[in-house]
């Protein structure tokens, strides 16, 4: 039997499987399903050593005790925990947050704190209230992929400023701001991750911090300081936050995702008074209120657990993993170069000349190892010969195995480049939308 017979009525109109195709905002049409995102589906399998995601080592937490803590919250204060809460966030947690920030030299009043659904929402509401389409945001080169996703969604124009081993280069920042002003561009803020940068792994030196604050102050540019990793230094005490140097010139974003657990999705923003009011309104418009349950869990954790001791334990675990990654890179991929981070989660690797990390990713997935290609951290398509390797999640043994596999991928890719030339190996300059795998 043949069911495609002439008896079937002719079709004059096709379907695009999306009845709302003509209704989307222009920016939605730029959203694409990429091959790269699809490849990350494999990274979740245990056979694959994922050096891609910035997932904290949750296995290091006392999960049984935390489970009991959660049970008690629901049993004893469920009527509050499971109800809507305040748009600005729970007052008691905001007070605790000021104590956490004091460790990095920030003196803030609980009224200045806005609790957010992860600092990712903080990024979104700050961008929402400051950015009109086409406004300029200055950001480090490279910059956090999740922030770039927010900036793109709000149609900002991101201009990157280089970093070196001491973080953002003040002279380059000055030069960029002068050039943008001369070009009549409107710079709304500098976005920076000063501590254990994601993805570059570097920290803005103590000497440069006042210089950066001063440059932005002179140019009338607000600073958005994103600091999820500040307490995760391996060998030193936290450096003073930019916010501590300029309370009126800096919006500060903090997070419990890396120091405790990202599953609660609790972060915060601290902003000058007038800005804070707008942030609360923007947050309420988006989410009404952050989760009471999550906030109460964080509060209870801060009250009843040795959270500073836990951070110390995390640091030691992460230092061991960093050591494993650096020694594996030295042993297996000596032709690459990299920084040695002294905190945080990431090593930023520069591949041998001619290699393109994005082009190479399918081969890596075949070899059962995953990473994030450097282009994800730029808005201008650069960074092709870089990759970000995360050491936070896999054990030291798995890290070693992952880097060993990566070395075979690098060798195979070098062979392809030798055959076809570096120009043919370059991936198309494009910007990928971030997914939670890349946070």
């Amino acid at each position, binding site marked *: 039997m043949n069911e495609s017979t002439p008896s079937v009525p002719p079709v004059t*109109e*096709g379907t*695009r499987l999306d009845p709302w195709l003509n209704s989307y905002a222009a920016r939605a*049409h730029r959203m694409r399903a*990429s091959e790269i995102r699809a490849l990350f589906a494999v990274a979740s*399998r245990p056979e694959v050593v994922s050096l891609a995601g910035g997932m904290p080592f949750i296995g290091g937490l006392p999960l049984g005790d935390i489970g009991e803590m959660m049970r008690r919250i629901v049993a004893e204060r469920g009527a509050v925990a499971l109800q809507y809460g305040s748009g600005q966030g729970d007052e008691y947690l905001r007070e605790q947050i000021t104590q956490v920030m004091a460790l990095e030299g920030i003196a803030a009043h609980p009224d200045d704190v806005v609790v957010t659904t992860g600092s990712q929402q903080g990024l979104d509401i700050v961008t929402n209230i400051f950015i009109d389409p086409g406004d300029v945001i200055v950001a480090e080169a490279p910059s956090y992929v999740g922030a770039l996703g927010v900036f793109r969604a709000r149609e900002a124009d991101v201009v990157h400023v280089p970093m070196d081993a001491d973080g953002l280069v003040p002279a380059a920042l000055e030069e960029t701001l002068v050039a943008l002003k001369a070009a009549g561009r409107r710079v709304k803020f500098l976005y920076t991750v000063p501590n254990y940068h994601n993805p570059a792994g570097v920290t803005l030196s103590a000497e440069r911090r006042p210089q950066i604050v001063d440059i932005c102050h002179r140019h009338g540019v607000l600073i958005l300081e994103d600091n999820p990793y500040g307490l995760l230094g391996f060998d030193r005490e936290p450096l003073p936050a930019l916010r501590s140097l300029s309370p009126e010139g800096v919006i500060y974003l903090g997070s419990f995702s890396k120091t405790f657990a990202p599953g609660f999705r609790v972060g915060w923003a601290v902003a000058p008074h007038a800005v804070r009011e707008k942030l609360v309104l923007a947050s309420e418009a988006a989410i009404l209120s952050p989760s009471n349950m999550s906030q109460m869990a964080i509060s209870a954790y801060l009250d009843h657990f040795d959270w500073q001791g836990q951070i110390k334990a995390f640091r030691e675990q992460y230092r061991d993993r960093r050591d494993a990654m650096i020694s594996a890179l030295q042993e297996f991929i000596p032709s690459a170069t990299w920084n040695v981070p002294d905190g945080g989660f990431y090593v930023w690797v520069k591949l041998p000349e001619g290699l393109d990390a994005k082009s190479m990713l399918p081969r890596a997935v075949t070899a059962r190892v995953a990473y994030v290609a450097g282009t994800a951290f730029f808005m201008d398509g650069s960074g092709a010969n870089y990759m970000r390797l995360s050491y936070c999640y896999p054990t030291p043994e798995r890290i070693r195995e992952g880097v060993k596999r990566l070395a075979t991928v690098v060798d195979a890719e070098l*062979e*392809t480049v030798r*055959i076809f030339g570096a120009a043919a190996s370059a991936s198309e300059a494009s910007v990928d939308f971030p997914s939670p795998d890349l946070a």
Partner: protein
Amino acid sequence: MDVMILAGGLSHERDVSLRSGRRVLDSLRDLGDNVSLNDVDADLIPSLRSLDVDVVWPIVHGASGEDGSLQGLLEMLGVAYVGTAAKEARVAWIKPVAKAVLARAGIATPDFVTLPQSLFREAGAEHVLAALAERFGLPVVVKPASGGSALGVTLVTKPDDLAHALVHCFAYGDIALIERAVTGTEVAVSVLGEGDSARTLPGVEIVCDGPYDYDARYNPGRVEYFAPARLSPQMADAVANTALATHRELGLRDLSRIDVIVAEDGTVNVLDVNVVPGLTEVSLFPQAVAAAGLELGQLYREILAGAVARGAA
């Protein structure tokens, strides 16, 4: 009916496979079947031995799911399963082999050459690229010799892009298939059954504002589908007959999707053969089922019942 769907796997198409598997699971559960969804991992064989399933439906795309490996394993275990048998899947999976089989049977398929990366090294990339340009001209399609979902596939329209397309292809596999690009009407034909009793569903015509690549396939909106395809009755029959002949010649079973292009001169060229066609919400097979006026879950049930009746290999 107790059914185990296998989806996921470790190929580049894991994501698509999981989406397909979940769709089939939902359709069957709606009909009251007892269905489980399993990945292909170390738990698979113990699960198959401990659970008393009537039939397994492997919906694993990419290598190991479509190359006959998984089918071979199921045959070894004596489990009834849906789809093409191991040996035939192996032949269909290797595109140049399948194309050679079809060409020998008189079924048109675009002119092609198969080249491993090592040959470019040995013979000199510059010389091989020049020979390719001379032999095929442009445009050509460069694709991995095995694989699906258009991963690693490039339509090359400019001479300078050929090397880049090959590098992209070799990231997915060591062997490239370079074929002459045929312009015309692209139609995907889903085929059910096997041998003499095989039958086609209405062809789905694909009209894309660029290459029918990964993004176009899985990001609804870029592609306009016409089901049934806008072909004359005679041409629709020719397309259906080509798909049927392909399905039979390669010994495919239960369901397949044969992608063809009707050239301007009316020749029906087979572009690709899919032993495990995508069954996601935006895939072509469910669209063909709808165009035939059939109910998806009911059809899946019939396919499963056929596999149960056939029993283990």
